[in-house]
């Protein structure tokens, strides 16, 4: 039996960048094949060639043993290849049926096509356990179910080979489990799945085979059973990496950040944080675990002064913060700095030169200029020095912020905040969309900061990160703090329950 996909000597250049160098890949039918690699390693380019977004400069694509030319996604769909993008391609105000029909309406009138879609969806639901309310409005579905609609779209179009690009990036742990069960049942039915991810745990959990890309080349393809996360990480980065940063036990100092009974409503008046109390001591990292959207973002923003809490108090270094001074500007002045969750929407200005993004929040600092005028030479020199210290690549302060990779953007934000000697540091999702090498670097920096006596409040949806870094873990669900644990005395199941709102009292 010929393999489902064979890519032979694929080459693709973008100007000077050799995105794919003589890449070979064989994916056997009826398997789940993982592709890992750092950002920019060429995974997405390779999949875009397979799905017809780009044409390869050289090389051959064979599907089920037959060489074919894929010039557009339509060719790919005809060859039985379907793709689920990281960012969904759905029309939110339309129903599930309408979304599945889109582009495959089957004639001038909708009725006939719709009936066909309904029977087909019912069949798919039975065959793969893909139950879904076909008349639900897609925008009202949970993210996990929206992803299911994407998969249904691909299957409806007759996909035998399904490519999933970072499918769990937006999912909660239970949703991710459900997705994996679905992928397994697809495999049992003879479908082939290609899974692009940077989470090694998922690779280990679900794939049969894994291919590693680095700098445009395919450096290894191994059977998952014969490898380990450290080995994969080393293949990806090209050197040994520590997946778990070591940190010494340290007894925390005096309380620096004290939050008492804080409640926050969003712009629509919905209560997002309810009666939250917590304390962070000097030299301590407190991690907040929770499924995205359970009030962690609002909590951080309220502490930083970006949102006005409706109730509760914030004390910094033992001093109560008055509402009149509780704004981002004055909080920075008194030593509370903030690495925001969403660096592109908040932490940086993508259209600015890097050296301009590197003073966001500090443009008023006297030393950065003369009177009302900013000293650009000074800003550029400052950032140059920081780029060297934080290993930002490329070390080009004048380059547009958006041109840096996620990890390097995050380093620019971190450098900006850390170099201003925080007393308290709020950190949101420090490694979202950041490659493994940079994750290690960022974790080391945070630990070093904690060892230097900074109080760090960390919010992350990556449980591994929370477990690795925190001295204490709080869980949040529905805006409430549902539990507190020591990392040594808990595990993922335990935290998962707390994150789902099963509190200690209730248990």
């Amino acid at each position, binding site marked *: 039996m010929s393999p489902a996909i064979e890519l032979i000597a694929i080459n693709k*250049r*973008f*100007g*000077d*960048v050799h*995105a*794919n160098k003589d890449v070979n890949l064989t994916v056997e039918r009826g398997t789940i094949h993982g592709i890992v690699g750092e950002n*920019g*390693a*060429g*995974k*997405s*380019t*390779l999949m*875009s060639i397979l799905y017809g*977004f780009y044409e390869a400069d050289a090389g051959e694509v064979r599907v089920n043993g037959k060489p074919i030319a894929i010039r557009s996604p339509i060719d790919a769909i005809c060859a039985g290849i379907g793709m689920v993008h990281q960012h969904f391609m759905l029309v939110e105000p339309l129903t599930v049926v309408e979304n599945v029909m889109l582009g495959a309406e089957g004639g001038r009138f909708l009725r006939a096509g719709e009936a066909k879609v309904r029977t087909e969806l019912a069949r798919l639901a039975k065959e793969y356990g893909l139950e879904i309310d076909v008349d639900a409005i897609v925008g009202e579905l949970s993210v996990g179910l929206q992803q299911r609609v994407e998969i249904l779209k691909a299957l409806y179009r007759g996909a035998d080979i399904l490519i999933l690009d970072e499918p769990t990036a937006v999912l909660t742990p239970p949703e991710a489990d459900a997705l994996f069960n679905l992928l397994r049942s697809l495999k049992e039915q003879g479908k082939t799945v290609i899974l692009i991810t940077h989470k090694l745990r998922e690779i280990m959990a679900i794939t049969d085979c894994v291919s590693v890309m680095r700098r*445009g080349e395919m450096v290894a393809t191994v059977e998952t059973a014969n490898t380990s996360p450290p080995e994969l990480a080393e293949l990806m980065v090209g050197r040994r990496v520590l997946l778990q940063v070591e940190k010494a036990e340290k007894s925390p100092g005096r309380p620096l950040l004290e939050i008492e009974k804080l409640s926050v409503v969003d712009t629509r008046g919905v209560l997002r944080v309810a009666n939250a109390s917590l304390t962070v001591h000097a030299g301590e990292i407190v991690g907040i675990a929770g499924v995205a959207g359970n009030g962690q973002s609002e909590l951080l923003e309220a502490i*930083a*002064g*970006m949102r006005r809490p409706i109730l509760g108090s914030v004390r910094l270094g033992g001093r109560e913060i008055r509402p009149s001074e509780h*704004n*981002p*500007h*004055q909080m*920075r002045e008194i030593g509370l700095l*903030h690495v*925001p969750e*969403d660096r592109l*929407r*908040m*932490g*940086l*200005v*993508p*259209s*600015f030169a890097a050296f*301009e993004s590197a*003073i*966001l*929040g500090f*443009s*008023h600092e006297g030393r950065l*200029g003369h009177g*009302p*005028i*900013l000293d*650009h030479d000074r800003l550029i020199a400052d950032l140059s020095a920081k780029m060297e210290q934080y290993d930002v690549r490329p070390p080009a302060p004048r380059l547009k912020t958006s041109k840096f990779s996620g990890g390097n953007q995050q380093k620019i934000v971190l450098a900006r905040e850390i170099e201003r000697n925080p007393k308290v540091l709020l950190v949101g999702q420090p490694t979202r969309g950041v490659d493994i090498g940079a994750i290690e670097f960022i974790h080391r920096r945070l630990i070093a900061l904690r060892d230097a006596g900074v109080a760090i409040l960390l919010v992350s949806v990556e449980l591994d990160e929370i477990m690795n870094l925190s001295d204490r873990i709080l869980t949040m669900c529905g805006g409430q703090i549902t539990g507190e644990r020591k990392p040594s005395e808990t595990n993922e199941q335990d935290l998962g329950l707390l994150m789902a709102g099963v509190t200690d009292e209730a248990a």
Partner: protein
Amino acid sequence: MSAPLEMPKWADTILVPAISVVAAFLMAGLVVLSIGENPITATRWLLQGSLGTGEGLGFTLFYMTDFIFVGLAVAVAFHAGLFNIGGEGQATLGGLGIALALNNLSFLPGFLLIPIGILAAAAFGAFWAAIPGYLQAKRGSHIVITTIMFNWLASVLVVYLLVNVLREPQSMNPETRAFPEQAYIPFMHEVFAVFGIEIPPSQLNLTLVLALAAAYFVWLLIYRSRLGYAIRVVGANPTAAVYAGISPARIIIIAMVLSGALAGGLAVNELMGYQHRLLLEFTSGYGFVGIAVALMGRAHPVGIVLASLLFGILYQGGAELAFEQPNITRDMVVVIGGIIILFAGALDGLFRRLVAQMLARPKLARA
């Protein structure tokens, strides 16, 4: 997938506008051809009339002065993410400020009166822009709607004042009495005459120098100052501004105040430099031309000065053209100007995309 519009700076600031202008002239040429006139001759008259004579050049530069002010006004608001359509109204109010200041303080000497007049124009223009700015910042009323309404309000207000309050009792014209002579901004030909250089007389006056200084000031403000930094953060990424502790509401009002003050410069050039009285409709729609100028100049002061020169050539050359070739009426010249605005403003994205794709295709995306 949408192609990112990345391209070298020279292509963005020079090549794309140049292509737009050439395309606009070709299209205008077809229009001229369609009414049975020779487009080559027409183009020659246009350039001859605007650049070929000393007098023509003077008028071209006079119009350019107007356009620099209103172009800069639109650009400053644009950097804060605002579309200020109210240049007309703000300039009209600027004119009212000039008339009130100069005619009530006519006992002052020129070296005091001229700066006072300029400041009055800026202050009245700023005031007229501050109200829509405030409504946008605090009430969320859309700035496009409010500034358009304020254009009408300004127009009606000045008509009322000129007809009922400010008009000379013995005059039938809805205009103020002439400003005190010491408040006239000197004509350029007068200034040159002092140094013994004779240039043909025209409306061109020293306000041009003020306009160029304003362009430099706007560059310094937007690209080098702390305030300009805050303005650009608000325009580019309002959420990041909140994170940075910059109040978008405050910046919106400040940007509109600066924008309105700049629009007041149009009144300085037209009234203190040339008309020497306040009269109806002295803005002649130039406030709207400012939008096209700012778009074409990519909201950058250098681009705006160049685009202003182009529009100055069109206005002056167009007038000459209508005079020399009666078949090409004044209305036809307006059509040609409209085509240029269409290509330079509305269709600008079209060529931008094409050029970006041609230049940047090999580097489009990285895996």
